[in-house]
C-alpha cells in the first residue's frame, strides 16, 4: 500500500499513512472478532448445556450482548489493590493485549502476488510465534504485581506452562515451514493452492498428525481449557486476573480471544490451506490469474479473506467445544502432556516429514498414489522438482525476494 501511496505523496508520509490504515484495520478486526467470539462462546456453551444463552440484547440472538457487557465493564470502578505494584499492575493488561494484536501484523489474510497483509515479512511464522509468546509477560506481570497469592500461583503456572508448550509448538510449526521451504506465511499459503488435497495437513501422514499436535499445543499456549490452569477458577479463584476489574480485566479477555484467533489462523495458513478453500473456486471461475487492482482480483482476494476468517472461526469454535466438554488437567499432568507426549511426538513427526521430503521430494500423499513413475522420479532425488506439474510451486520455490514484498 505504501508503494501505491508514494506515487501521490512523499514516501515517508505514504509509509505512515499505510501503517495507520493497517493498524486501524487490525485493531478493528481483533476487537470485532473478540466480540463475536465471546458472544459465540456464550451461545455455543449455552446450547451445549441445554440453555439458550443470551437472547435479548440487540433484538435477536442476543448478538449485542458482548457490547452491553463491554459497556458495563467500562463503567465499573478501576480497582487497584493496596499492596499492588501500581505501575506494573496497570500496565500488565496492555502488554497482553498488545502482544495478542501484534501477532496479526504478520498474518496474511489473502495471498498471491499482492497479499493482504499488514507487513509482509519473510520470517512471518517466526515473528508471529515470538509475539504470541510475549502475551505471557502480561500474565506474569499481572500475577506478580497483584499482591495476591492466588494471582501469583496463576502467574507461576502460566510461566511454566507456556514456556514449555512453546517447544512442541515450535517443532510443529517447523514441519510445514520445512516442507514449504520458507518462513514466509504468504509463500506457505500459496503453495497450498488448488484442491484441498494440496493442503499441508494432507501432505503426508506426518503433517496430518502434526496438525493435531499443533492444535493441542496451541490450545495450551493460549490457556484454553483443559489447559486453563492460570485462571483455574475452581482452584485459584480467578488466577492471575483475580484482582482485576472493569476495563483492565476485559483487556485480558480480549487478549485471550485475540490469541485464540491468531493461533487458529496460523493453523489455517500452515496446515489448512490458508486463503485457499477446499475447492479452487477462484480457478474454476477464472479469477486466479487476474491483474492486480482489477475487480476479479479483488473478488478472488475477498474470497481468500473469507476463507481465512472462516477457518479461524472454525478453530475457535473447536476450542470452545473442547472447553465446555472436558475437565481441567492438573499442573503436573499438563507438563507431562507437554514433555512426555507432545514434544516427542512433534519431534518424531518432524523427523518423519524430513524423511518423507527426502524420499519423495515435492510429492504430497495424494499425488503420490496415482503416479506409477513416482518411484523412478524418486531415484532422481531433488531433480524431481522440475517435473512438477504445478507451475506455481516453481515460481514460489524461487524465494520470497522474487515474489515481492508488499512494502
Amino acid at each position: 500500500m505504501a508503494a501505491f501511496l508514494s506515487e501521490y505523496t512523499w514516501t515517508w508520509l505514504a509509509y505512515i499513512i499505510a501503517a495507520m490504515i493497517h493498524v486501524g484495520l487490525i485493531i478493528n478486526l481483533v476487537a470485532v472478532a473478540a466480540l463475536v467470539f465471546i458472544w459465540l462462546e456464550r451461545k455455543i456453551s449455552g446450547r451445549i448445556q441445554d440453555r439458550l444463552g443470551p437472547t435479548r440484547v440487540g433484538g435477536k440472538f442476543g448478538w449485542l450482548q458482548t457490547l452491553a457487557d463491554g459497556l458495563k465493564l467500562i463503567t465499573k470502578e478501576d480497582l487497584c489493590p493496596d499492596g499492588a505494584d501500581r505501575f506494573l499492575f496497570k500496565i500488565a493488561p496492555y502488554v497482553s493485549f498488545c502482544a495478542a494484536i501484534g501477532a496479526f501484523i504478520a498474518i496474511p489474510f489473502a495471498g498471491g502476488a499482492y497479499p493482504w497483509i499488514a507487513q509482509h515479512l519473510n520470517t512471518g511464522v517466526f515473528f508471529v510465534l515470538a509475539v504470541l509468546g510475549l502475551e505471557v509477560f502480561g500474565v506474569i506481570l499481572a500475577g506478580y504485581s497483584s499482591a495476591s497469592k492466588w494471582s501469583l500461583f496463576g502467574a507461576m503456572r502460566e510461566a511454566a506452562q507456556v514456556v514449555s508448550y512453546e517447544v512442541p509448538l515450535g517443532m510443529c510449526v517447523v514441519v510445514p515451514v520445512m516442507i514449504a521451504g520458507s518462513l514466509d506465511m504468504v509463500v506457505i499459503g500459496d503453495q497450498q493452492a488448488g484442491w484441498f488435497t494440496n493442503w499441508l495437513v494432507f501432505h503426508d501422514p506426518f503433517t496430518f498428525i502434526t496438525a493435531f499436535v499443533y492444535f493441542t499445543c496451541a490450545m495450551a499456549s493460549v490457556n484454553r481449557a483443559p489447559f486453563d490452569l492460570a485462571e483455574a477458577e475452581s482452584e485459584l479463584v480467578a488466577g492471575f486476573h483475580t484482582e482485576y476489574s472493569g476495563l483492565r480485566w476485559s483487556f485480558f479477555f480480549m487478549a485471550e480471544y485475540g490469541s485464540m484467533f491468531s493461533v487458529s489462523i496460523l493453523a489455517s495458513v500452515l496446515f489448512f490451506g490458508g486463503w485457499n478453500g477446499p475447492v479452487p473456486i477462484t480457478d474454476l471461475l477464472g479469477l486466479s490469474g487476474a491483474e492486480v487492482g482489477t475487480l476479479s482480483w479483488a473478488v478472488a482476494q475477498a474470497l481468500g479473506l473469507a476463507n481465512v476468517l472462516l477457518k479461524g472461526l472454525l478453530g475457535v469454535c473447536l476450542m470452545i467445544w473442547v472447553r465446555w466438554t472436558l475437565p481441567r488437567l492438573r499442573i503436573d499432568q499438563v507438563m507431562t502432556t507437554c514433555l512426555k507426549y507432545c514434544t516427542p511426538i512433534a519431534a518424531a513427526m518432524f523427523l518423519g516429514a524430513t524423511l518423507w521430503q527426502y524420499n519423495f521430494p515435492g510429492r504430497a500423499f495424494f499425488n503420490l498414489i496415482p503416479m506409477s513413475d513416482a518411484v523412478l522420479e524418486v531415484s532422481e532425488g531433488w531433480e524431481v522438482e522440475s517435473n512438477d506439474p504445478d507451475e506455481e510451486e516453481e515460481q514460489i520455490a524461487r524465494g520470497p525476494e522474487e515474489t515481492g514484498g508488499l512494502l
Partner: protein
Amino acid sequence: MSSLIDDPRVIEFDVRTDEMLVNMGPQHPSTHGVLRLALRTDGEIISEVTPHMGYLHRCAEKIGENLTPRQWIPYTDRMDYLAAMNMNLGWALTTEKLLKYEPPEKARHLRVIICELGRIASHLVGMGTYGIDLGSFSPFLYAFREREKILDLFEEACGARLTYSYITPGGATADLPVGWTQKCLEFLDQFEPVIAEYHTLLTTNAIFIKRTANIGVMSPEMAIDFGTSGPVLRGSGISHDLRRDGEEIYTAMYDGYAFEVIAQQNGHYPKDHNYPPVPKEAVLGDCWHRFYVRMLEVMQSIDLARQGIERYHAATDGYGEPLKLKTKLPKGEVYLETECPKGQMGFYLVSDGSDIPWRTRARSSSFSNLSVCEPLCRGCLIADIPAIIGSLDIVMGEIDR
C-alpha cells in the same frame, strides 16, 4: 501416578524455598459454601490443611430447645439444604422413637419414595459440583436439569422447592397429590438413560479419571477411625448402610425392599445394573470410587423409588396425619441415626416431659467426613484440594447448623 511424596517438608538441599500460608475461602468457588481452609504450601505442594468452620452457625440446636419437635422441622430443612427431605425424616423418626409411635403403612412407603428422590437430587448436585471443581461446567447443568424435575415433583407434593418441611412426626403434612406417582414414574423412566450421559462426561472421561483416580486414597481403617459415613465410607469398600444396618425403627421403613449396599466387596460392586467398568488406575478409597459410589446409589435409588410407588399403591391405610403441634413428649432421651445422602445424620433428643425438648442435638455426617481432609490433602497439589473436598461432598449448612 500419585502426586504424593513422603514428606513434603523435605526439600532439595540446594533450593531455599519458603512456605506460604494461603487462605482458601471462606469466599472461594470450590469450598462448597463458607468453609475456610488454611493451606500451608510449598509452591504447589500442600504440607498442611486446617479447615475452619463456623461461618454458617445459626444456633439451630439451641432454637430446637425452644420449639416443639414439629416446629423444629423447618430448621432441619436448613441443615443439609440439598437433601432437606432426608433431614426431615431423621428428626421425624427420632421424635417418633421417643413417642413410640408407628406411622401407618402408606406413610412408610411415601417416605421411602420421597427420601430416595431426595437422595437422587442430592447426589446430582454432588456430581455436578464435582464436575465444576474439576473444571468441567456442563455436567453441572445436566445434573441440575434433572434435579429440577425432582424439585417440580416435590413442589407438587408439598409446595416448596428447597426447604420442604414435608415429612413430619406422624407421617407427612399431606398425602401425595392424585397422579403424582404416575409423574414420578415417568420421570424415573426418563431419568434412567440420562445417567449414561454423566458417565460419558465424567465417570469414564480420561481426564476425569486422571484427576480423581489414586487421589485422596483413604484406607478402610482410616475411614472407620475418622468416623466417616455414607458414600465416603462405602467408597473405601466398607459395606455399611443404615438402611440395612441401622436401628429397627429406621430399617423397618425399608422392610421388604430389595436393595444391596453399594460398596466394593472382594473387588466387585454389586452387579445389578449396567455400570461402566472401574478403570485400572483407580484405587479403592480414592476420589473416583467415592464419586462412583454416589453414581451407583442414584441408580439404586431409582429402583427403590419404583418399589416404593408399587407398595404405596398397595397400602390401604392413611398417609399419616402429622402429630399435633404441641404433643406432650414422654420423659427420656433418644438418639437415632439415619442414612442421609451425605452420610449418617444423627439426632439426639432429651425430654423432661413437657412438649418442648430439653435438649436437641444434631450429629452431622459432613463434619466427620470433612475431618479426613487434613490427612488426605497432605502432600497433594493445590489442584487436588477441590478434587478431594468435592469428593467428600460436604454441605456447610449441616456442619455448622
